[in-house]
Structures are given as C-alpha cells and as structure tokens.
C-alpha cells in the first residue's frame, strides 16, 4: 500500500503482476498456436507464431486417433455419473437434514467420512469387485463408481441447504395432507435448485479429469475416456507434435466452454447458499 504511492515501486508491482500473467498463460497459448501449424514448422521455429494457421491436425486427431469416441465416452460417463450421484444424494440428504429418525446422526457422519477418505486407495478391491460384476472395460462400471465418489460431497452440501429452509414449509404441507414424496418433489427440490446446479458443476471437474480408474478399468480403445485416450495417444504419436498439441487442446476445450457458460450459474448458486 505504501509501495503504491512511490512511482518506481508501483512500476515494479505492475511489471511483476503482468509478467506473471504471461508466465501463467503463455504455455497454454503456445499449446493452442502449435496445434494450428504443421510439425515441421514447430521443429524448425519453436517460438514463432503460426504463419498459415490450419486445422488439419484437429481433423487427424478427431478421426484417426478417435478423439470423437473419447469425447463421447467422457460425456456419457461424466453426465451419467453427475446426474446419478446428484439424484441419489438429493434424495438422501432430505431426511438426513429434516427428519428426526433413529440413527440420523450416525448415518450423516457415515456419509460425511467419505469427504476425507482417500477413495482411490481402494483401487485393487474395486478392480476385483468390478471384475466379479462383469464391469471391467465398461462405461457403466465407471459411471457407477464416479457417481458413488460424488455422494459424500453432494450429501454434505445439499443437507446444509435443506436445513436452511424454514420448517413451516413442510409442516404446512403435511397438515394439508401432502405425502413425503410430494413435499420433496414439489417444495424442497425446487427450492434447492441453485445448490443442485453448483453441486453438479463441482462434481463435473474431478470426474472429467479422472485418469487412474480408467487406466486400470478400461481395456479397449473404443471405451476410453479423454484422459485415458490422451495417454494412449501420447504413446503412439510421439513425433507428430502438431497432433499432440491438438489433442491437448481438444482435451481442455470442453471444460473451458463449460466454465465460460456456467460462471454465472456457479456464482448464483454460491451466493444463493450464503444469503440464506
């Protein structure tokens, strides 16, 4: 703050901050630029801009390296897992937050423990569990696993939201003769909608990025998700750098699009939770 008043100090602050902004963004910009020019150009002039930008590598990665399949698999598994995880959690969080039944606290703590457990250390038993259910190399197996791993976080956030709603709401509905399912579906669920949206977004990112489970549980190319496919692809196309950069961009783009589209929704969801 005192530095802000002295001119040389202020110049140093500007230089440091904008200089680091370059450090933070430049690698990603290089990734994008190099995906738009042929490998021969990348090798001869590692630092220059694309002279005649082309999308050829994208076409190659999309069809030959079957990124279209990876993207579709990732979308299927992620959306399925997020929807399923959120749905079962929305159901479970309601009685946990608003009903006084025997074992409520214990059950709440049981779900909550999942927030602190390093879940992936169960990998070996998960492998044999999946094997026994015929879910190795299966998108359904991954979906169920991811949905389950989202449950502790969802239950935690959603019960806090249910709890913040006034008690008169369901009492009045109960007096009017509404059943629990009606109260849940027509009163509770619409009121926690902002929380549902942000809970889904927060699950989306780690599921989209998950690599260890698909590395162990998926076998065939046509089942690979994007991270698993990317690892395969980096093993096969080691010298075609243009294609490698294009693959990295394609792996990153969907999440960026989602974040640009959803930033408002995220903020709305978070502030809706805080103002209550």
């Amino acid at each position, binding site marked *: 703050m005192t530095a802000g008043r002295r001119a040389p100090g202020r110049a140093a602050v500007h230089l440091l901050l904008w200089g*680091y902004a370059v450090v933070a963004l430049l690698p990603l910009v290089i990734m994008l630029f190099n995906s738009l020019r042929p490998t021969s150009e990348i090798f001869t002039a590692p630092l220059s801009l694309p002279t005649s930008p082309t999308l050829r590598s994208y076409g190659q990665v999309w069809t030959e390296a079957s990124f279209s399949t990876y993207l579709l698999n990732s979308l299927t598994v992620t959306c399925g897992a997020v929807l399923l995880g959120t*749905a079962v959690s929305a159901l479970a969080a309601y009685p946990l937050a608003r009903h006084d039944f025997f074992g409520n606290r214990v059950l709440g703590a049981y779900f909550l423990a999942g927030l*602190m457990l390093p879940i992936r250390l*169960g990998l070996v038993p998960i492998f044999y*569990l999946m094997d026994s259910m015929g879910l190795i190399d299966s998108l359904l197996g991954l979906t169920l696993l991811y949905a389950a791993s989202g449950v502790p976080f969802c239950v935690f956030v959603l019960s806090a939201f249910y709890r913040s709603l006034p008690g008169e709401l369901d009492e009045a509905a109960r007096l009017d003769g509404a059943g629990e*399912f009606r109260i849940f579906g027509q009163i509770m669920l619409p009121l926690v909608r902002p929380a549902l949206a942000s809970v889904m977004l927060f699950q989306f990112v780690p599921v989209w990025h998950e690599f260890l489970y698909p590395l162990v549980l998926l076998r065939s190319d046509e089942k690979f998700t994007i991270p698993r496919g990317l690892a395969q692809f980096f093993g096969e196309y080691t010298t075609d750098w243009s294609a490698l950069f294009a693959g990295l961009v394609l792996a990153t783009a969907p999440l*960026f699009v989602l974040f640009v589209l959803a930033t408002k929704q995220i903020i709305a969801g978070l502030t809706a939770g805080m103002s209550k």
Partner: protein
Amino acid sequence: MVQARKLSAPRRRAGRTGAGRRYVPRWRVLAVFLLPALLLYSVFIVYPLVSALDYSFFEWRGIRQTGFAGLGNYRDLLSIYPYDQQVWRAFAHNALFFGGTMLIQNTVGLLFALLLFRYGRGKRFLQAAFTTPYLVDPLVIGYLWSLLLNPTFGPVNALLEGLGLDSWALPWLGDTRTALPVVILVNAWQWVGFPMLLFSAALAGIPAEYHEAARVDGATAWQAFRRVTLPLLTPAIGVVSVLTFIGNFNAFGLVYAMAGSTGSPAGSTDVLGLLFYRVAFLEGGVEAIGRSSALAVLMFVFIFGVSLLATSYFRRRERKLV
C-alpha cells in the same frame, strides 16, 4: 450421564420443532430416500476401502488367498528389495513435492493476493489469468510441459538460447538432479491461483480498522503484516495446507505424464501414487494384492492421520485468535 441425557432430551426436541425435525416418517418411506445413496456409496467406496485393509493381512498367490499373513505384507514391503528402497524414496519425493509446492505456491499466492488487494484496473483479468492453469487437467499439464521442456525441439530451451543463456538449455526432465524440482515447479505453477483466491477472500474479510489501529500505534508496514494480517490469515493457510497435502500425496496424473509409470529418469521422480499403481498392476507379481493393499493401508493411515491432526491444529490456532 444417563440422567443428564433424559433431562435434556425433551428440551432438545422442543427446540427443534421450528426446524420441522420432529416428524418421523415411516421406515418404508425413509428407505426409498436413503437406500439408493447408501447402496452406491457403501458398495463402491466403503466396501473397497475396508477390503483393502482385509486383503493386506492375507497371503496371496495371484487372486487366491493362501493363508493369514498378519503383518507379513507390511514387513515385506519395508524389508524386501526393491520395495524397501522404493517405498522410502517415493515417500521422500512426496514430502519434497509437498514442501516445495507449499513453499512456492503459498509465498507467490500470498504475494499476489496482497499486491492485487488494492490493485485497480485489470485486477479481474489478472486473477483469471493466474487461476487458468488450474482449470486444466493435471494430465494435460504434464504432457504439455513434457513437450515444452523437450531438450531438442522444446520452446523453453529455444527461449533460453534466444536470451543467450545457452548453458541453461538443459535436458530438464532427463537429468536426475533437475527432474523432481521441475515437476514441483510445474505443479506450483498450476496451483498458484488457488491459494491466491483463498488469501484474497480472507484479506477482504479483515476489517480496515485493524490496519488503521496498527498504523496509529506506529507500526511499520512489515510489523502490521506480521502481527495483524498474517495471524488473521491462519484459517485460509490451514485450508490450503490440508488440501495441498491431500492432493500432493495422491498425485498421479501430472507425474505419470511427465515421467511415466516408473518416475523416470531412474526413479528420481517416483511418488507413492506411481509406486502403488506399479505394485498393484504392473510389477507386483503373484503377491501383488497383499503387498499393494498393505501399501494402500499405510498411505491411507498417513494421509488421513496427518489431515486430521493438521485440521485440529489449525482449529486450535483459530480459536486462539478469537
């Protein structure tokens, strides 16, 4: 005890009517609400973790249990070559990985949060720029940097040569002395936006009067920072430390992409996540299940234990502040 509970029970219940908690639905209704989540979570999360503990106490031949082993798998893991060396080496690398990341990302993140606190135009853009890398998949970050740092065609060395620093154009990821520090730097580069955002939020929550009072009392800028700002950032530092700890001891994708499953070169970047994967699925042999489960349990106890201890430590520090 019993009497106290009896006395307090009616009062508690009366206090809760406001929250609508008195109502107890029928068990069948409850089951419909609770069972799907309970089943999914128990089968795919809790059961595997409990099984890992169970597996670690048995002798294995492939996928067949051949007898009770007691702590045998644990003993093997810590005494049989090559595990005896690899476990400790991977653990040391994780510790360095955590220490280095904490040091870099927290100092830089705190510095940027402080500098941006009163920064005018461009603040939003700068915050977004610093946090962008952490939206990207660690696996993508790892592969990206392995290309950027390539000794022959990589832009990093081309840049260093262009600046006349030819002696700095090293095979960064191919040298056992530089590989781990470079992986740590890349990790800190990816995550620096996270402490910056948390510290910014915490700074915004410190009442301006505190700083004014410090100034009136004649404190220098450094003293005000050291005695007022830093202690009030304790909760934020606690959250960052615990989450970074959990994240770093579970690290896998970033290191896998930069150094392969063996933590090349020559195991100089090997971490517990890679070691666990190798023992369980690549080179564990017929005893893979028992030994990898023992390793999983050791990692579990360490990560969970330290997180709990750290959380309660920071809670106590926080309470002292109030």
